[in-house]
């Protein structure tokens, strides 16, 4: 009798679980955070007034960095995002009525940015950073809506996703959001300045910086408990830790960080890889006051202290030891022609290595990757343009590069730990 009772109990629990799972699957636990006010359409006059704010917010969100192919057309989508489950493609967000979002109502648009749900109750994949855009205020979402609807419509169909995403898996996002979609608010702090609040609002919201700069858990959700402690490898480059302490330790203060975001160039280094896209499409076009706010927020620690960098690392004893001299000679041969015999760089041509933030990173991945692959020609604001740095994958072997990187890190990075040839090989193998 007891056994049957136990079996019945188990079956009951199983049925309940299945019912619960089905409930989740069908979105019963998916709430809406959209204000009822937005059911009413905006007037033309209202939309017109919101355009400049909408433009600034779209830049902050770097919408076009993802939603436009490198050669355009603007906002027509088509950029591939590789995931372990297949390739997602960004969508057409021009107001084209057939292929874009031209049919979206004001409410539809809010539902997307706040809840991550598109018209027809379609769950969006988190390639769209709705976890972050969720904190955006109602009037700001209205501004974005007005701005998006003012763009020229482009009749380009969306590129189909691949892999798992060809199957009808959207409902399974409801499980994902249970664990990975906390209902966040714009950050506040007692005694915080207007500037800090604005920076916090942008960084933790539309800016979605943490989507790259924070590690992800097994389900590819953002691990908010490890906020800004660095992310995965993107395009072969390690996404750095950008907590205030780490930024300061690597030489930044609010002014230089602001300059870096506004122009892509600073004494601490130039923007390349993923950050080049961000600077190019987003931060270099935004209002300087907003960038200052972002920099202030990022350089402020948990106690409200605006951090400043300590004096840069002095050359370590290793740098002068015989074992690293081949590394020094490699620098003199291959690097000093542009980066200067003393690592001083050439103004407006090649960034200094002395004081360079990538050289100071604990993890040598980025330094090794840049030595192997170089950096493509990049344009920055203010007529600035840096010609391509050559890659040395075909010119230097793993041992050479290991010695070079070890010497540079000892000389200018304050890093004791040498780089090994095996490390270089591992990075080379991934290319």
């Amino acid at each position, binding site marked *: 009798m007891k056994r049957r009772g136990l079996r019945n109990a188990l079956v009951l629990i199983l049925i309940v679980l299945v019912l619960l799972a089905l409930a989740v699957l069908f979105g019963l636990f998916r709430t809406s955070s959209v204000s009822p006010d937005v059911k009413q359409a905006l007037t033309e006059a209202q939309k017109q007034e919101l*355009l400049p704010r909408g*433009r600034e917010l779209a830049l902050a969100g770097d919408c076009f960095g993802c939603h*436009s192919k*490198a*050669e*355009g*057309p*603007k906002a*027509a989508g088509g950029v591939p995002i590789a995931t372990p489950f297949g390739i997602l493609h960004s969508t057409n967000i021009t107001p084209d009525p057939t292929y874009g979002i031209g049919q979206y109502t004001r409410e539809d648009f809010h539902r997307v940015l706040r809840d991550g749900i598109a018209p027809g109750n379609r769950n969006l994949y988190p390639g769209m950073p709705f976890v972050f855009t969720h904190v955006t205020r109602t009037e700001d979402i209205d501004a974005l809506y007005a701005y998006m609807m*003012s*763009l*020229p419509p*482009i*009749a*380009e169909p969306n590129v189909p996703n691949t892999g798992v995403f060809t199957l009808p898996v959207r409902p399974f996002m409801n499980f994902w959001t249970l664990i990975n979609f906390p209902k966040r608010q714009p950050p506040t702090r007692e005694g915080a300045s207007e500037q800090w609040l604005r920076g916090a609002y942008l960084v933790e919201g539309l800016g979605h910086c943490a989507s790259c700069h924070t590690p992800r858990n097994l389900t590819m959700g953002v691990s908010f408990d490890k906020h800004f402690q660095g992310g995965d490898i993107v395009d072969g480059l390690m996404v750095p830790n950008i907590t205030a302490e780490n930024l300061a330790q690597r030489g930044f203060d609010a002014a230089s960080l602001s300059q870096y975001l506004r122009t892509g160039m600073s004494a601490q280094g130039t923007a390349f890889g993923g950050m080049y896209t961000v600077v190019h499409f987003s931060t270099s076009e935004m209002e300087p006051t907003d960038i200052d706010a972002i920099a202030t927020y990022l350089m402020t620690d948990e106690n409200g202290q605006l951090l400043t960098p300590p004096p840069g690392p002095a050359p370590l004893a290793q740098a002068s030891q015989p074992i690293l001299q081949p590394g020094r000679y490699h620098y003199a041969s291959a690097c000093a022609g542009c980066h200067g015999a003393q690592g001083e760089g*050439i*103004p*407006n*041509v090649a960034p200094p290595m002395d004081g360079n933030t990538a050289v100071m990173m604990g993890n040598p991945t980025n330094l090794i990757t840049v030595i192997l692959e170089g950096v493509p020609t990049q344009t920055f604001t*203010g*007529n*600035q*343009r*840096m*010609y391509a740095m050559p890659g040395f994958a075909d010119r230097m072997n793993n041992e050479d590069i290991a010695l070079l990187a070890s010497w540079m890190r000892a000389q200018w990075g304050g890093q004791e730990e040498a780089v090994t040839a095996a490390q270089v090989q591992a990075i080379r193998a991934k290319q």
Partner: protein
Amino acid sequence: MRGYGTIQAMSITELLVDEVAAELGMDAIELRRRNALRPGEPNTQGAVQLGDPRLVEMLDRAAQHPLWTNREQAKAKYDAANPGRRYGVGFAQVQKDYGTGADTSALLLEFDAEGKITMRHCVQEIGTGATSSQQVVVQRMLGKAPDVVIFGETDFPQLPLKSNFEPFTISQQQQDELSRDPFWVPAILPAMSASNSVYFIGFGTKQAAQFLFENTVWPAAKAIWSSGPAGGQLASGVMTAADLRVVPGGVGGGGMAPIPFADIARKAHEMGLVTGVAVHCFSRWQWARADFDIPGVGSLNLAVDALAVRYGDGAPEALKARMNTGGYDFIKRSAVQYPSAQRNNAGVTTYTPAACLVELNVNTFTGKVEIMSHHSLLDPGNVVVPALVSGQQQGGVAMGIGHALMEDLPLYGDGPGNGTWNFNRYTLPRAVDVAVWTQTAEYLAPLADSSPPKGLAEVVMIPVVAATGNAITHAIGSRFYRLPITPAKIKKALTI
């Protein structure tokens, strides 16, 4: 080698001409056609151009070009097929002056009894290929290129000339007085420029070669063709100097058997004819002429203002005794007709016309302009060395594209004046920027074989600038008045 000067003004005026045409609702080439200079019409300074400007003819050719006639259809088709990109075609025409208003040339051209030709010339090679073209001129006119050439010659003992070196400010009275001295000239040696070599400096070469052709080669050839029984090949016909030609094998014409230059040379020396000539010429938008009484030749009015001659080995002692000026006989001019000082006010009379059609597309997202093809039109006159003209034209249009789209030089502290700029920031056009495979060019055929060659250098880089700007306007509707038209400026014009 290309200099600078009017590209700045002409580029902007050609952009404005298109704007005026648009406001008038008129085809942009038609507006130019109605306002183009016709032959013999004075310009704004009162100067009348040398020869036919051929501007209307060039406009007519451009108007018929498929790039122009198909532009609206092509735009509709391209824009529909390439969302986010916009197609445009633009045109511009300019004419660029060459010469300075005090152009001179000086050279010495002689041959020995074996036919070895030596030329000592004032022209210096600055990259224009002038040293090549001067040799080709001699080859075309005498049938043989010089065997020995010395360029960059600044010292001509055979022409002991003097000058007060004020050709631009001299008064008529001063000029009349000073020119009574047969050794005085308004200016002695020319500056080198990219465009003054083939016509202006080459003018002296042409005068020297022409003198020898008429006064030495002809009498020597006549003597050779008349030799032998019954008055030779020449006797039963009527041949004059005007019938003499350079032909394969040497000198001929009138049906005579060609004579190799070496034989002409030997005969000329035997006959004691003039076997070397040193000339100096001067132009103030009109060539000076002078009268010379040359022993053994006669009284001639030549388009030079100083002349010295060398007599052949067989000349009588009396003539040889006259050769005491650097081994030559300096013939003092008995009269000289210098262009009036007033012509300094008239301005330029020598121009080369050029036009360009540009086909491009604008990426409205990146602001980048892609030049798809371009077609250049040029009137170079009678070309002396085709490769030099073509190379100049190809290089010029590339340089112009750089000026139109890429070569931004900001003012003030962050600009190139701060000493840190290099080609990373000063962007130069590369092959992919200039439609290297699809570009085309046409030259207007010379009106006759006696058309002079036209000086050209900077002209080839000018029309492409405004043509590019006009094409961008056709593509996206915005007009630009500050060059270069960079992606940043285009994006700003398109910003919503």
